[in-house]
């Protein structure tokens, strides 16, 4: 008996009210067509979403947790990067 596993896929679901796909978990499937079907069966049983993205886990490249301080902390003390010094008139909506 072979010990091979099907490839692992990361599953992203967009809900009816949502604008973006959220990561909900992973599944194993032999190819992208069955990956969509398996994701539908495992992650949308309770009407969680209206759109599914699957990406093979090997194609997801992530930042190292150990690098978090040098990647993200420098931005904390740079107030000039935030557009908070303007008075926005009421007539300009959606800003």
């Amino acid at each position, binding site marked *: 008996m072979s010990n091979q596993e*099907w490839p692992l896929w990361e599953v992203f679901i967009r809900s009816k009210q949502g604008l973006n796909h959220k990561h909900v978990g992973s*599944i*194993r*499937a*032999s*190819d992208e*067509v*069955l990956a969509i*079907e*398996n994701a*539908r*069966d*495992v992650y949308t*049983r309770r009407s969680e979403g209206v759109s599914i993205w699957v990406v093979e886990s090997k194609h997801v490249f992530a930042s190292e947790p150990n690098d978090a301080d040098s990647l993200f902390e420098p931005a904390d003390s740079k107030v000039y990067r935030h557009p908070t010094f303007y008075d926005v008139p009421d007539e300009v909506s959606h800003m």
Partner: protein
Amino acid sequence: MNIQEALFQYVLRLGDDSLILGHRLSEWCGHGPVLEEDIATINISLDLIGQATNLLEYAGKLEGKGRDEDAIAFLRLEHEYTNILLVEQTNGDFGKTMMRQFFFDSYRKLLFDRLVKSPDVQLAAIADKALKETKYHLKHSSEWIIRLGDGTEESHRRIQDSLDALYKYSNELFFTDEVEATLVENGILPSLDGLEDEWNTYVQAILKEATLTIPTNNWKQSGGRLGKHTEHLGMLLTELQYMQRAYPNMKW
């Protein structure tokens, strides 16, 4: 045959197919080859049992003798079930289950495409809801036939064996008698002409892609619609009916 009686019999036939196949698939619960397929198979089982509930409830109303869907599902004798023989066959390996499903789904998808146009409002509504489920079931089973057939040597051998074993039960999908004839004559059912040809076209295309060979043995087995079942139904019913018969009128 009067129209009401014919419609009762017809809806009963559809309901029994869904009920028995739904029960067979439920036997996979917890035993699927992988988690994802275990969930997929149970989803399909639940869809079919849901269809059976709708159909047998409607059948009870048409019969007009006070039987509800539970009485019809759980309290008949073996020869009173009108399901086709295909759906009562044992599950076998995953491939055999998929082959049985493939034959059934492709037939039901084509049938419901027509039934949604029936002037019988209730039947059309049931068909409309079931059609969406069936399209997904068909995609799922078709994709598996292709992968198992055009797969490894072992998967090909096993799925070919399943095709050889089940093909003789496929003909009964298209069995009709005075029940269907009465309904078509009176415009309740749309014509079923050409259904078998469409089914053959679809099935042969998928089997070809799966590099599988259709059996040349022309023997076809039927009898289910008339209550003449294989040895499997009796044993299936001992499980299906156990709770209702052991605890009559029990409710969840």
